[in-house]
């Protein structure tokens, strides 16, 4: 039996591979950001003794008189209009609770979903009883942020045929800060799979649907077996996304596709090895730089 043996190597600092001269203002908790009291206190800072102190470790950002400290890694901070992928955690009266990797569970009201069949009417008591037949605990959905409440909780809606229950596919979780904000977060990639890049760092990979089955209103999922070739494409994409995330590359359609193309010379399982990850991400980085120039 052939066996793959690898020897341990010293952990290399990731940044050694990237040589960019940057001068960010980095702070750690308790550091004084500024003593000028004319500045306004933003996220990640607090006032004490007329000094503006940082409360998180990260990069200082200044917009006019507003000073914020952006932490490297946080939970998802929702904004109206964001596309999110989430998991139903609870069915309550008139609403579902959805885990979107935010600080509090998000809310999906019964009145902000499309009913099966797409009919438009007031929601009755029967609809409340049938809620669990539409979406039950553990189901994955894609949705849009409709409103942000004062305590930071999000209200979602799925009032478009784009959104709704997700069927067969793979969920990849990355840090929300790695998702690049674009005009569209739904992509049919050229390699034969589709991707939903949720702003909350949840990424959904699935086979590109053959035709628009819109009359179901997004509650019926296609349970037909997915062909081996499609599954291979999806697993390769998954490994590529994890590789990009490990090297803190921003994720959007082009970067994912370039990384996928760079990975084609390797076997799918080899994409989990650190040296291969370094290689393909370096290649992707290079191509993206060329694209910019």
């Amino acid at each position, binding site marked *: 039996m052939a066996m793959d043996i690898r020897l341990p190597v010293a952990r290399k*600092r*990731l*940044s050694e591979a*990237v040589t*960019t001269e*940057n001068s*960010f203002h*980095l702070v*750690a*908790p*308790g550091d004084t950001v500024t003593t000028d009291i004319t500045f306004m206190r933003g996220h*990640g800072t*607090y006032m*004490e003794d007329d000094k503006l*102190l940082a*409360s*998180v*470790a*990260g*990069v200082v*950002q200044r917009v006019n008189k507003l000073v914020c400290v*952006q*932490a*490297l*890694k*946080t*939970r998802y901070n929702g904004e109206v209009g964001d596309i999110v992928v989430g998991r139903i*955690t609870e069915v309550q009266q008139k609403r579902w*609770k959805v*885990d979107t990797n935010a*600080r*509090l*569970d998000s809310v999906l009201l019964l009145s902000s979903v499309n009913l099966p069949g797409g009919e438009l009417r007031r929601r009755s008591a029967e609809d409340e009883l049938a809620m669990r037949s539409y979406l039950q605990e553990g189901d994955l959905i894609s949705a849009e942020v409709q409103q942000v409440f004062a*305590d*930071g909780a999000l209200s979602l809606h799925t009032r478009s045929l784009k959104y709704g229950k997700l069927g067969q596919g793979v969920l990849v979780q990355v840090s929300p800060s790695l998702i*690049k*904000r674009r005009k569209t977060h739904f992509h049919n990639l050229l390699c034969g799979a589709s991707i939903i890049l949720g702003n909350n760092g949840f990424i959904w990979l699935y086979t590109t649907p053959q035709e628009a089955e819109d009359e179901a209103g997004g509650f019926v999922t296609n349970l037909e077996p997915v062909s081996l070739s499609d599954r291979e494409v999806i697993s390769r994409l998954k490994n590529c996304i994890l590789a990009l995330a490990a*090297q*803190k*590359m*921003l994720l959007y359609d082009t970067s994912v596709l370039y990384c996928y193309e760079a990975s084609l010379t390797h076997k799918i399982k080899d994409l989990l090895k650190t040296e291969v990850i370094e290689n393909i991400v370096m290649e992707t980085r290079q191509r993206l*730089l060329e694209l910019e120039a």
Partner: protein
Amino acid sequence: MAGLELLSDEGFRQDGRKPGELRKIQCRMGVFAQADGSAYIEQGNTKALAVVYGPHEVRGSRSKTLHDRAVVNCQYSMATFSTGERKRRPHGDRKSSELTIHLKQTFEAAILTQLYPRSQIDIYVQILQADGGNYCTCVNAATLAVIDAGIPMRDYVCACSAGFIEDTPLVDLSYIEEAAGGPQLALALLPKSDQIALLEMNSRLHEDHLERVMDAASKACKDVYAVLDQAVREHLQEVTALLGDQGSA
């Protein structure tokens, strides 16, 4: 204490340290991908692992929810193999539950909990190898994990133990020194503002000596701070260098 000389005539301790010297500290942030924040720390032979989840919705009994701030939930545990004698502690012993409460008090003082009403922050720490100063190592590990999770804190929390042997305050006690049974003090400090988050002492110490021991402990906490701060900055530097060329999109 027959036969065991904790402080030699030349002023050196069992392991060759001076009275005010710390053990070697090594640490790493972001060791797990699944948790919101995680850290691993070694202080001499004491090794601890900390993970932080949250802030997230309050799980379990909803009655714990606080409407003006976040709930801090801590759990301290020791691995079966952490001590010289192998011992299984399925539900934790009395000492662990005491340290759990201490950790909770310490971090409620440091984390800006009022920013996250109705949520919960979980801090789990485990001792992988126990060689004295378990509580202090756990506090230091948890601080790094909380910073890694991007949870706002007033300041770092740095902890260090101190003892008093042969009229000399010793800091960062090892297991042998702890087991000798002298007075022992654990101090958790917010080093920038010099505020005490937690102070605990067991066995008796004369009032006249307390100030000297406290001073030694707070100096040691500031030394710990210097090491932790350097580790955090290196981590920051590394990650921002990677993110740097892509602009802040």
